[in-house]
């Protein structure tokens, strides 16, 4: 048991099963599906307001998704904490700017390249998630298991778009 708690990693089947079970409890306890990307949209109003002023809060999108702390934003904060706990327990916590990877490229092995790839990648990711209406968790897991049509198309699109881009980069 002790060994299990401190293990570097768990079987993906175990982790997948537990994420599935966590989804049940999320539905039962919070009446919500696991998802993360809407929180970033809410938070983005604050960033936008720094540049364009308070008027951005009146935008239609931010009227729908108000920039406030709610269930899902807390979930995202929880992910940071949970991952930190897991990483510390397994001795994997490591402050690093450049990711350790066997897929080396100028986009991830020097500071400028990594700032560029992470920032532009983030822009595409944020925009794409809003347009598609969800991310790998909201569509990819929670939406697909509810047999949502949009979610199955999204899951395929995420990995097709991702694979094409990855093969072009690496």
């Amino acid at each position, binding site marked *: 048991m002790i060994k299990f708690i401190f293990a570097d990693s768990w079987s993906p089947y175990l*982790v997948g099963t537990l994420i599935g079970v966590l989804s049940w409890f999320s539905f039962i306890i919070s009446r919500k599906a696991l998802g993360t990307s809407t929180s970033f949209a809410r938070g983005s109003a604050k960033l936008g307001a720094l540049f364009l002023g308070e008027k951005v809060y009146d935008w239609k999108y931010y009227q729908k998704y108000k920039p406030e702390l709610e269930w899902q934003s807390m979930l995202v904060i929880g992910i940071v904490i*949970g991952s930190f706990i897991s990483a510390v327990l397994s001795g994997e916590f490591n402050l690093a700017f450049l990711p350790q990877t066997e897929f080396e490229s100028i986009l991830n092995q020097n500071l400028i390249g990594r700032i*560029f790839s992470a920032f532009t990648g983030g822009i595409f990711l944020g925009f794409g998630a809003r347009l*598609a209406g969800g991310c790998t968790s909201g569509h990819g897991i929670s939406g697909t298991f509810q047999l949502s049509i949009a979610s199955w198309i999204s899951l395929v699109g995420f990995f097709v778009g991702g694979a094409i881009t990855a093969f072009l980069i690496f």
Partner: protein
Amino acid sequence: MESKLRLIKGLGTGIFFGFLLQRGGVTDYNVLVGQLLLEDFTVARIILTAIVVGMLGVYFLSDRGLVVLKPKSGSLRRTISGSLIFGAGFALLGYCPGTIAGAIGQGSIDALIPGLLGIFTGSFIFAAFYEKYSDFIEKNKFKFNTFPELFKINHWKIIIPLTTVIIIFLFWLESIGF
């Protein structure tokens, strides 16, 4: 603002989720990019297993009126273009919105600073775009949100075959040594 209790429920759910993502290895750039390059199938294993377990449980609970499903809607133009753009970002950044939070928790500064800033910027650009083109974006929504509604059949007639196909795929993945 939502009640304190609700915020705590969100936080608690997130802590479990983050722990599982990190322990599953999917907060690691190498594992995520490895999946997109079809060299490491950890992400597929986790997602597909979570789909099967989540689906069986949540539909079981929903049949008994214990939970209310919340399937997402979309439209062809929105869902296809959005998901492909998302995928391109996923490959460049090497994280997705959930796993980036996990990557931050395990100390990845590229996730914390340029990555997070990028996601906020991209979401903000969308909000600006939505301000002008919301009618266009919201057009031609799917008439049915889920496959059982679309095919007008009982959901278990999809759940059982889908579960079978996923399990066979995962066994096949193991058998070819991926």
